[in-house]
C-alpha cells in the first residue's frame, strides 16, 4: 500500500546542508503495524511526517496505492490527510479551551458532516477510547493519558486507513502508555494500518514489524511474531 523509494530530506544548502534522510526504501502493507525506532535525531519524525504528507521529501518517490503522492498539489495532500490518514502526536496537540467533543468533531467539519451526525460519531469515537463521561471536559481538565485518548479518538473518528503516531506514549507514564498502546492495537486489529515512532522497546513490541533508523538510513528491520 505504501512504497517509499530512495526518499531523501535535506535542510539548507551548500556548507550548512543537513542531510536528515539519506535514501529510504520502505514498503508497508495494508493492515501492518510498523514501529520506527532509532536514536534521537536519526530522522524518525522527519520520515513519519513525510509518510503523513505533512512534509515533502527532497528526493525519491512516495506511492500510496499507486498514487504518486509527490505529484499531488497542496490541496490534494490536504484531502489525502483528510480522508486517508489519522494523526497522534507526542504532545497531544488538542485545541485549547475546546471540549473533548468539539476536538473530536473538528475533523468531521472538514468532511462536511451535519452537526447532529457529527456529534453522534464523535461521541462514538470518544466511547471507543473510554471517555464517554468526559466529553464536555477541556484538555486542561484532563490527565495526560485522557488527553492522548481524546487525540486518538480525533484521529480515528474519520475512520482513516492509516494511523500515524509520533511517540504517542512519550509524555505518559508506563501504565498509561500501555493503555494507549492497547487502544492502538485494537484499532490495528480492526484493519487499520499503524505507523508509529517510539524509542521504547516494550512499546515497539506492540508492532508486527520494527524499522531501525540510524543517521538517516534504515539500519535494520525485525519482524515480530503476531
Amino acid at each position, binding site marked *: 500500500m505504501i512504497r517509499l523509494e530512495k526518499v531523501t530530506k535535506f535542510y539548507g544548502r551548500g556548507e550548512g546542508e543537513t542531510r536528515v534522510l539519506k535514501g529510504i526504501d520502505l514498503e508497508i502493507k495494508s493492515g501492518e503495524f510498523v514501529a520506527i525506532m532509532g536514536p534521537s535525531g536519526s530522522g524518525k519524525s522527519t520520515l513519519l511526517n513525510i509518510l503523513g504528507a505533512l512534509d515533502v521529501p527532497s528526493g525519491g518517490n512516495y506511492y500510496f496505492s499507486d498514487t504518486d503522492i509527490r505529484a499531488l498539489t497542496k*490541496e490534494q495532500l*490536504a*484531502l489525502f490527510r*483528510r480522508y486517508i490518514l489519522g*494523526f497522534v502526536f507526542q504532545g497531544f496537540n488538542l485545541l*485549547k*479551551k475546546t471540549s473533548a467533543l468539539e476536538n473530536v468533531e473538528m*475533523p468531521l467539519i*472538514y468532511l462536511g458532516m451535519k452537526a447532529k451526525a457529527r456529534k453522534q460519531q464523535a461521541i462514538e469515537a470518544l466511547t471507543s477510547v473510554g471517555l464517554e463521561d468526559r466529553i464536555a471536559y477541556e484538555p486542561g481538565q484532563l490527565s495526560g493519558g485522557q488527553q492522548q485518548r481524546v487525540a486518538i479518538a480525533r484521529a480515528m473518528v474519520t475512520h482513516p486507513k492509516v494511523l500515524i503516531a509520533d511517540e504517542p506514549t512519550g509524555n505518559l507514564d508506563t501504565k498509561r502508555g500501555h493503555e494507549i498502546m492497547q487502544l492502538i492495537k485494537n484499532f490495528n486489529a480492526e484493519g487499520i494500518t499503524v505507523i508509529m515512532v517510539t524509542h521504547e522497546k516494550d512499546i515497539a513490541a506492540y508492532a508486527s514489524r520494527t524499522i531501525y533508523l540510524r543517521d538517516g538510513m534504515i539500519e535494520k528491520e525485525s519482524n515480530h511474531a503476531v
Partner: protein
Amino acid sequence: MLFNAFLQALREIRRNLMRSLLTATGIVIGIASVIAMVNIGKGASESITQSISQLGSNTLYIIPGQERGPGSQSVMVKAFKMKDVEVLKESITTLKAISPSESTTMTVLYKDKNHQCSIRGIDNGYFDVQNWALKAGRNFENSELRTGQNVCVLGQTVIKELFASDESPIGKKVRLENFSCDVVGVLEAKGANTFGMDQDDLVLVPIKMFQRRISGNDNLHLIMAAVKENIPLEEAKLQIQRLMRERRHIKTGEEDNFSVRSMTALLDTITQITSMLTVMLGAVAAISLVVGGIGIMNIMLVSVTERTREIGIRMAVGAMAQDILVQFLIEAVVLSGIGGIVGIIMGMAITVGVSVAMDITLVIDPSITMIALLFSMLIGIVFGIIPARKAANMNPIDALRYE
C-alpha cells in the same frame, strides 16, 4: 462549513472578549458617526423644510441692496417707500397679499409690568402673507392705517408677560416707551421657528405709526409678498424685478440694487451647507473606519501567530488552505460586523438623543443602516485578507512545530 466558521469565530471573539471589543471600537465609532450624521442631517433638513413651508414657501422677500450680510451695503442703497408697496399691490396681479415689515426692539409697559420685545410696523396684508389668524379682536382699520393711529395687535408671549391670565387685553392701553397704544387684536400662538426664535414675542402696529413715532422717517427695508397659489414663484419674482428696476431707474445692463428672495432659495443654501457638512464628516468617518480596519488587521495578525499550532492541527486533519482562509476571514468579518452593529445601535441612540434635544424631526434611514452594516463587513474582508492569507499559506509541519 461557513456556518461552522461563523460559530468558531464567535467563540474566538468571546474567548478574547476584551481585546475584541477594543479592536472593534474604531469600527463602532466610525459606523456610529456615519449613522448619526446621515440621520441627523436628514432630520434637520426635513425640519427646516417643514418650517420653511410653514413660514410660507410662497413668500417673497423684497430687500433693498444685493447683500444683506455684514457689509451693511443696504444702508447705502436707497430704501423703499410706501409708494413702492402700493404700486406693487396694484400692478403685480400674481400676488395674493403684500405688506411692509419694519422692526425694532422696544419695551412695552402695562400697569406695573414691562417687557422687551419686537415691534413691527405692518400693513393688513401682513396677516395674509404670514398666514396668521387673529385669536381675538380685529386687524387694523383703513383709517387707522392711513393716519397711523396708536393701535396695536399683540402676540401671545407679550400677553403672557404683561396681562393676568383672566384679563382680556382687547381695549386696554399699553405703553410703548413714551406713547400709549390701544390693543385692538390678539394673535394666535405660532410657537418657536426653526432657529428657536419665539415668533409670538411681538407687537404689531400700523406702518405709518411706526414710521412717525418710532423710526422717524418713511424708509422701508423689507417688503413681504405672498404669491397666489399655482403661480410659480419665479414668475412673480421676475415681474417684481422688472417693475422695481423701472421704479428705481436701473439701466439695462446694470445690476439690481435690490433683491427678491424666497425661502426656497434659503432652503437650497441650507441643503448645500448640510450636504457639505455631510461630505466633510463622511471623510472623518471614513478615516476612522480605515483606522478601525487597521486595528482589526493588527489583532488578526496577532491572533494568527498565537494560533499557529491550531492552524497546523487543522491542516493535519485535512483542512485545505482555503478552509483556513475562510475561517480567519469570517472571524475578521464577524469582528467588524459586530463593531458595525454596535455602531449602528449607538448611532441610532445618538440620533434619537440629538433629535429630541434639538427638536429635530427623527429620521432613521433604513438604507444607510444596511449600507453601514455591509460596509463594516466589507472592512473585515479588506483588512482581514492579509492575516487570513498568512494563516492559509502556512506549511502544516512548520505550523505544528511552532512553539
